[in-house]
């Protein structure tokens, strides 16, 4: 039985070609970033090894049924033959044809079971990352893990940064409705359910950026709730960790950025935390998003420019050209490119500025003041803040310093 | 056969026969009610007397016994056509099975 399976796994491509059905054909060569047939890690590989033969079996059965039906249609069409004997069936044949599918499925079930339990293991975890979904972005929270140099928690959003070849365990939850975390190249989905903590194994074989998308319907901007997993070599990951934990560097005196910091303190800090940012009076600026945002959280912007995307990975922080350079980089240099972060030349000014100008206009999210009744006055997403173009320029300059 | 007068008569007859042959006597009903009352008293007593590990099973068994007695005797299911039993117990067993599985997925029974 096992050997048949292994053969199916090995020959699956040949068999698929044979059972030339469009569904099955979708597995051969492709470019969509969320393709479910291109495993890039051991967990997705477990799934892939399971689904290829299953699809092949399904394809073959489909073909058999189609051929049998068409053959019957041709052979027994009305050619003036007399009305046939009124036979009522052949129990032996029936039973055989019932048992065969049952046996096929029994084999499938055995391998399915194996995969289910392999994918549910949590005791071999090497690294834990807490993931929280909210309308409509993901927050990542790396608890202290000295073996990775994480000596104090790191909070980030949008892009999940992880080391390659490491068994990462996501602990998912949600602050409002159900979301679902899905990086097709690394594993299947796991819902982020408010009130529950659920785990998902992730492991990447090679450095690279892997696309994902929230797949549980979560309201207006569900379609815009995307994410990316960035797998870095262990060395690169250590650099990333170090940068995330680096102390706050205040913008140079009298620069545009410093004016931006002021605007930020006035306008933004009530929701957004920037670690190490001080108020004019020398006290640390602590954000209180729970008082302003329904889900109780807004992205931590301390190292905004270390990410490539913003607002639920809906928009690029990098201009198209710079982005393509990172995304299409071969896996040995992708880490370096990614760690370069967002430089002034590469910044996607247009989208960031329109975000600051009027975020709800970019993403549907009921964040305008007229629709706050249901949430008791709290915003769902980032509100329209009526900033002047001047302020926006200052803010952009400031945000650029948040490396 | 579809002339209604005839089978209406037949139907009435059937109903009456059936009441006579299968019905219990009033005394019988009162006996059942007395047993039910006694079990209820026992049930309530579990709140005050410590039954130890037997507490839960005892309660559930008493509940089931009462349930079945009312269904079988007061509702006549025991004496009536099997189709009625099928209809009712199909629903009951399905409900118990499905909802037990449902609670099991919440790890309800192993808390």
């Amino acid at each position, binding site marked *: 039985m096992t050997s048949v399976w292994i053969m199916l796994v090995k020959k699956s491509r040949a068999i698929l070609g044979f059972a030339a059905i469009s569904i099955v054909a979708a597995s051969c060569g492709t470019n969509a970033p969320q393709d479910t047939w291109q495993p890039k890690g051991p967990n997705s590989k477990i799934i892939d090894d399971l689904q290829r033969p299953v699809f092949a079996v399904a394809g073959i059965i489909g073909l058999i049924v189609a051929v049998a039906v068409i053959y019957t249609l041709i052979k027994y069409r009305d050619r003036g033959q007399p009305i046939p004997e009124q036979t009522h069936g052949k129990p032996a044949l029936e039973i055989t044809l019932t048992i065969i599918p049952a046996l096929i499925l029994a084999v499938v079930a055995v391998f399915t079971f194996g995969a289910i339990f392999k994918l549910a293991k949590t005791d071999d975890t090497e690294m834990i990352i807490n993931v929280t979904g909210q309308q409509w972005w993901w927050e990542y929270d790396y608890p202290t893990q000295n073996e990775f140099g994480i000596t104090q928690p790191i909070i980030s959003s949008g892009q999940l940064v992880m080391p390659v070849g490491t068994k990462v365990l996501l602990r998912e939850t949600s602050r409002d409705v159900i979301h679902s975390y899905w990086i097709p190249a690394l594993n299947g989905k796991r819902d982020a359910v408010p009130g529950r903590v659920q785990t998902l194994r992730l492991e990447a074989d090679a450095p690279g950026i892997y696309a994902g998308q929230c797949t549980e319907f979560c309201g207006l901007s569900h379609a815009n709730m995307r994410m990316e997993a960035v797998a870095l070599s262990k060395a690169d990951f250590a650099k990333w960790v170090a940068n995330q934990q680096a102390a706050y560097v205040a913008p140079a005196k009298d620069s545009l950025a410093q004016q931006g910091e002021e605007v930020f303190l006035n306008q933004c800090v009530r929701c957004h935390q920037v670690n190490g940012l001080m108020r004019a009076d020398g006290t640390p600026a602590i954000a209180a998003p729970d008082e302003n945002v329904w889900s109780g959280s807004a992205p931590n912007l301390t190292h905004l420019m270390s990410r490539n995307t913003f607002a639920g990975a809906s928009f690029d922080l990098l201009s198209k050209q710079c982005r393509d350079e990172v995304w299409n980089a071969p896996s040995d240099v992708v880490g370096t490119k990614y760690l370069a972060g967002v430089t002034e030349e590469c910044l996607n000014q247009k989208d960031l500025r329109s975000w600051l100008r009027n975020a709800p206009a970019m993403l549907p999210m009921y964040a305008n003041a007229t629709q706050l009744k249901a949430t008791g006055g709290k915003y769902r997403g980032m509100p329209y803040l009526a900033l002047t173009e001047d302020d926006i320029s200052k803010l952009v300059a400031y945000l650029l310093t948040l490396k | 056969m579809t002339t209604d007068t005839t089978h209406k008569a037949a139907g009435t007859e059937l109903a009456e026969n059936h009441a006579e042959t299968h019905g219990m006597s009033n005394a019988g009903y009162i006996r059942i009610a007395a047993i039910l009352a006694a079990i209820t008293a026992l049930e309530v007593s579990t709140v005050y007397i410590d039954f130890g590990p037997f507490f839960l099973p005892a309660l559930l068994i008493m509940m089931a016994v009462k349930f079945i007695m009312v269904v079988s005797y007061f509702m006549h299911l025991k004496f009536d056509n099997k189709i009625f039993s099928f209809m009712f117990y199909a629903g009951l067993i399905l409900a118990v099975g499905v909802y037990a599985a449902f609670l099991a997925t*919440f790890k309800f029974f192993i808390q």
Partner: protein
Amino acid sequence: MTDAAVHGHESSTGISNIKLGMWTFLGSECLLFGGLISTYMLYRGRVTGGPRPAQIFDIPFTSVSSFVLLMSSLTMVLAVSAAHKSEDKKTNLWLTVTALLGATFVGGQVYEFTAFYNEGLGFSTSLFGSSFYTLTGFHGVHVTVGIIMLMALVGIFKRSEVPGKKAEVVEMIGLYWHFVDIVWIIIFTLVYLIPV
């Protein structure tokens, strides 16, 4: 529900349409109450600062009202039995007593709800509150509908305007009534007697 009589149609099984219909309906009700009971069981311990079940339940009181409902099943069955013997007076008497016992039970429930409410358990207080009131409320509504049917029956009998066969109608309502009783048998044990 008396359409059966309308039909000039012999039944294939020899049993009456409405009785079969009623049992079918009761089979379905098992899944309704099953769902409500399971929801309660799942949520009974989740009190978010409100009172816990054990803090507010008054077992002696509920035991008495449960007993009242149980006995109404006896009076109901006596009514059915009288109806089968065509003893109209007795039928009416027992139906009335059943309705009264039912009303006593519902009255007890109203009292209980008020008491719980005063002790801090509102419908929105906690999951326990929501699911408790929903479950027992559904049951109470069933009893109330039963009472209305019983009283209507008595009224109709008085005017001797029973459509269809009298005994059968009484039996039907009896089945419904007993079902409501057995649901309470379960609720009484699972909700009240098993502590959380």
